[in-house]
């Protein structure tokens, strides 16, 4: 267990993709302290910014990094990590676990935007809220999250799972607009409400919204009413309206929306 505690509050963005079990593995406290990070346009070291406590018994296999304190401005932590675990006690900045390939990240507080963007495998769990573009692709790319799991216990922002290609995103709170936009494959589960346009331009995959939605994008067509829906092993009981779409994209994605929470969608039943 290696513990990092920030020495002071950051104003400008700090880029610290080197904070990752893969990099820390088999490094001494001194070596870790020398690792380079960016504060705005200044080159710094982890030692400049963090107190490092190096617990014993850290073999490269189950190496764990704990960050205690406010790192809300620190970006790209755990980027590309493939092993071990990162535990963050407070809030965390953008691009957490970007292109992650394995391991576990847990955040006690809130996470910034682009959590697990382009991730391939592993698990990210955020106890608080997440920003926009959870599990999204980089600008112009169609390669969003391809595998692994992101769990958000609070709310998530806009475009959750943008260009998603696989894996699972679970949001126990509510989500913003365009959840699952351009989604190709994979599963998004939303316990709370959606601000609308769920599944817009999706061509495949599955989106489940247990709460309220303002409306369904007109390019979706109703298929049936389902008593329950399976998410991996877990079964969620409905009933749900099941829509197919996005027909504007020749898509056959499946959008499940709670029937009981959305009486204003009852008019769709006449097409069944």
């Amino acid at each position, binding site marked *: 267990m290696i513990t990092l505690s920030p020495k002071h509050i950051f104003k400008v963005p700090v880029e610290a993709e080197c904070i990752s079990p893969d990099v820390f593995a088999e490094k001494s406290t001194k070596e870790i302290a020398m690792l380079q990070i960016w504060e705005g346009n200044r080159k710094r070291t982890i030692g400049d910014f963090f107190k490092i406590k190096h617990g014993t018994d850290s073999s490269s296999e189950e190496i764990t990094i704990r960050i205690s304190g406010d790192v809300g401005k620190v970006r790209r932590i755990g980027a590309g990590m493939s092993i071990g675990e990162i535990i963050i006690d407070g809030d965390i900045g953008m691009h957490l676990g970007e292109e992650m390939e394995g391991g576990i990240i847990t955040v006690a507080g809130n996470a910034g*935007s*682009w959590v697990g963007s382009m991730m391939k495998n592993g698990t990210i769990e955020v106890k608080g809220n997440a*920003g*926009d*573009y959870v599990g999204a692709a980089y600008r112009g790319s169609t390669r969003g999250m391809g595998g692994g799991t992101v769990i958000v216990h609070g709310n998530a*922002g*806009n*475009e959750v799972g943008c260009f998603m290609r696989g894996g699972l995103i679970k949001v126990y709170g509510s989500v*913003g*607009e365009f959840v699952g936009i351009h989604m190709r494959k994979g599963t998004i589960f939303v316990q709370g409400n959606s601000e609308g346009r769920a599944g817009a331009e999706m061509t495949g995959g599955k989106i489940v919204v247990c709460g309220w939605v303002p409306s369904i994008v007109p390019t979706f067509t109703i298929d049936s009413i389902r008593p329950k829906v399976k998410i991996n092993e877990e079964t969620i009981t409905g009933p749900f309206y099941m829509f197919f779409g996005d027909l504007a994209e020749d898509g056959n994605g499946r959008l499940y929306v709670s029937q009981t929470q959305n009486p204003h969608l009852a008019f769709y039943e006449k097409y069944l």
Partner: protein
Amino acid sequence: MPKLKVSLLTGRTIDQGKGKEFGKLSEEYWKSVAICEMDPNDIKELGIRENDSIKITTDFGSAVVRAVKSKRTPHPKVVFIPYGPWASLIMNPRTHGTGMPSLKGIPAEIEPAPKERVLSLPELLKEHYARE
């Protein structure tokens, strides 16, 4: 005091464009941007006359501007304020990861403000942006 729930739009107008070219401190500029174009019926509903001061409030702030009749109606419950320091006070700064704040279709509330005066530009800057 009557209140009106409206959808706020901001944008360019030819007067604002011209006013700008007379200088931001000019009377023309103030006249062209410290205003709120409303549907005449909405103005009636507020029980005020054209050019009276109104206070418009969003989740992000409030501003006092002149109410003027929109020439191209109907657009009930939709009001328009040209780009400028006054509109900026009540815009939605959230970009949702796009870099673009929301400057159109913002839910807002309008009420008559007979007691309040529309600020001049220097006054506005002093009140909202002056550094201590």
